[in-house]
């Protein structure tokens, strides 16, 4: 009778909808690519850098900054990978949950057009409250996973992506991790073939403090270049000043792996420091500064034949 009463009342009252305060909390546990993607300043109206990332001329003062272009390209590439990780999450965010339990929400199963014969679901589970690192007040914890299964049968669910989030108050404010399990699923899901040699993408993020921090690690399977892992870090202050660090693979035998750390002010002016990690110039470094029109104002390379242009005093002071 206790179960019948609300059912009868529901029929009598004829109510329906997705009006839920709790749904907002579950949805907020999911990472949003727009918030985690790096955002390097660009000024399309005055930007002289058409064809950015393609310049092969030697460095010269007043020329478009090569380091800025490399950082911009790296930002675009890493954002694309983050997009791959979170695209499914983004797709279901706008839909109401299919199933509501006291401490969980499930979206799906849905048919997956990109992987014919499979269906997908997103499950978010609310866990025990925890105190975040560096915090004092406990926050709600959520874990989530994106699962696939063959429609025929149907098969058993297997996990493509999962993550966790510790909410510390505010819309999507907290600390989270997420990962995309490529290698173990690529044989079943055709859509993963776009990731090439990547076997695993992992990310961690902290959004409840300034600066916002995002870290990514890319684990590779067997590849011709022979590398197994790359890292990427990004921080963004509230005023839109930011910095990023990443490894850059090149075909130059002298600089096969370059570790780059770039930073910028809200105006766009910034600086990058590069250290040769692998190659004939291993251990050499380079510094390049650009102004708010993204033109080189200072360049210094300490490897053979390197340049030393401009005055280092022309470089802006970075906030972090």
């Amino acid at each position, binding site marked *: 009778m206790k179960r019948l009463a609300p059912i009868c009342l529901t029929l009598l009252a004829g109510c329906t909808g997705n*009006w839920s305060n709790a749904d907002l909390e579950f949805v907020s546990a999911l990472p949003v690519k727009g918030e985690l993607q790096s955002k390097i300043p660009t000024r399309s109206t005055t930007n002289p850098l058409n064809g950015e990332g393609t310049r092969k001329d030697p460095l010269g003062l007043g020329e478009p900054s090569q380091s800025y272009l490399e950082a911009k390209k790296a930002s675009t590439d890493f954002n694309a990978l983050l997009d791959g990780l979170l695209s499914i999450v983004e797709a279901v965010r706008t839909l109401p949950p299919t199933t509501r339990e006291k401490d969980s929400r499930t979206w799906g199963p849905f048919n997956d057009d990109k992987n014919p014969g499979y269906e997908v679901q997103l499950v978010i589970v609310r866990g025990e409250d925890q105190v975040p690192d560096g915090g004092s007040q406990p926050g709600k914890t959520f874990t989530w996973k994106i699962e696939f299964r063959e429609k025929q049968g149907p098969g058993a669910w297997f996990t493509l992506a999962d993550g966790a989030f510790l909410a510390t108050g505010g819309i999507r404010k907290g600390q989270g991790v997420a990962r995309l399990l490529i290698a173990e699923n690529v044989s079943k899901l055709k859509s993963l073939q776009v990731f090439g040699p990547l076997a695993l993408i992992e990310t961690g993020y902290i959004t409840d403090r300034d600066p916002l921090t995002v870290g990514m690690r890319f684990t590779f399977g067997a590849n011709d270049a022979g590398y197994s892992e790359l890292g990427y870090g990004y921080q963004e202050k509230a005023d839109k000043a930011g910095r990023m660090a990443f490894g850059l693979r090149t075909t130059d035998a002298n600089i096969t792996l370059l570790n780059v750390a770039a930073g910028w002010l809200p105006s766009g002016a910034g600086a990058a420091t590069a250290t040769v990690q692998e190659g004939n110039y291993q251990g050499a470094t380079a510094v390049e500064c650009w102004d708010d029109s993204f033109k080189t104002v200072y360049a210094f390379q300490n490897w053979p034949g390197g340049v030393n242009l401009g005055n280092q005093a022309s470089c802006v002071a970075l906030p972090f």
Partner: protein
Amino acid sequence: MSPLRAIGVLLALWAAAPARAEAPIRRFAVVVGHDDGGEGTRELSFARDDARKLHEIFTRVGGVPADDAFLLLNAGADDVLTALGEMERRARDATLKGSRSVLIFYYSGHAKDGALRLGSSKLPLEALKRRLATAPADVKLGIFDACRSGAITRTKGARRAPAFEIESDATRAAKGLVLLTSSAANEESQESDQLGGSYFSHHLASALLGDADKSGDGRVSLAEAYAYAYDRTVADTAESAAGPQHPTFSFDLAGNGDLVLTDVMLRKEGLLVPAGAPAGQYFLVDPRGFVVAELTKAEGVERRVALAQGRYLVKRRLPDKLRVGEVVVRDGSITTLDESRLKDTKFSDDPVKGPVKNTAWARRFSLSLGGEWQQVFDRPTQLGGYFPSAPMFGAEVALHNAFGPGFGVGLDVLYGQINGFLSTDAVGTLEYRYGVFSVGGTFMWEYAPSFVVPVVGVRVGFQSMTREFLGTDLPKQTYMVLTPGLVVGVRFRIFKGFNAGVKARLHYMLYNVDEVRNLGFLDLSAMLSYEFGGG
């Protein structure tokens, strides 16, 4: 030879009648009026008024002592049978004491499927007819003013004719049953707003008050009253939408004689229209604006109407105008109409104002526009509540008196919007834009005749709510729910068809997404309305 051709049925039952009445006569009456015919019928406006009118005439000029006349208004079948049983007992006692007795049963109300409809109870016509036929009175007179009431007369001796025929030179007092009905077995009996009663009862009353006294002896016989009521009822209803209405009669009598129903001179009270007054049709109108009696006067003939004491307007209709004047009938005296006191009046100033009463209860529409505050009984959304309170505006179309006096329906549409903040532990504070759309139907009762019109009712609403979270990509949320509720309000007739009013609606609302919660809301509204389409 009487003006009415003598052939058959005869009664002689009036105490003051000629000497052929050998024993004293006692008269008893059960007068019933019921506006409500129960399921499948529409409430009548004047059935009780008809009963009051006939009860007053029977007791004032019809020889029925007030103690021997029961007036039953909106009473059930059991009460009617109980009253009839009591009058049967008294008639039996009168007979044992050597008196002759007359039992009159009058009914105004609904009849359907072979039964009188007394609210939710029924009184089968055939059973009632048998009861009257076997009642221990010398003469039983049944008068039925009801739709298809002719069903009671069609089994034996029924006639649909202008008059039944009476042998005037009979010597034996009659015994038996006479039945009069207002319409044939397949006809509706109609009411008139102008007359403030049914056509048949109005004309029967007018006849009994004296207009049917063709012989001029001051007495109105059953034959005279029936002939008069028949002619006037058929004439008045000939052009009506429901079609002409033909009264019927039947009799099952032994013996002879005429039945005098009223004696206009009995109380020496009423209105005298002198022989010198102009010929024509006179209407006597009471202070409410209803025609209580009519009088047809021929040139050079004196006429009397047994009006009760009171103040009346006398109206005579001429081709291009009305002649109207006031007369006062005092207790125990005859007032003579003075033609010189009548004044010419335009047709637009006709004192007959029957519709005044009925305008209030007439079926009509209204359109209302207004605003309201919807107060939701829930925690504030800043404290985790689900629905905010909001201002709304909208319109309502209502059909008043759709299901009888005071009972109507309304259809309303409302929209509201407000911005607010929602706070939850994990999400913090979000700004939202809330929208609410409501459409509802109200079944209401209102007391319409007064300047202040109270309204009560029940409403079932369909409410659709949305909220969008500003500055976020969180999905829009919606909730739709049926909300039953109660309505109470009052409106004021401020100017002609315009009304201003306030209303409160208390509604139940079930929420069942995150959890099952029984919520409610109160709508407090103010509106301006315009009524149209009423008679």
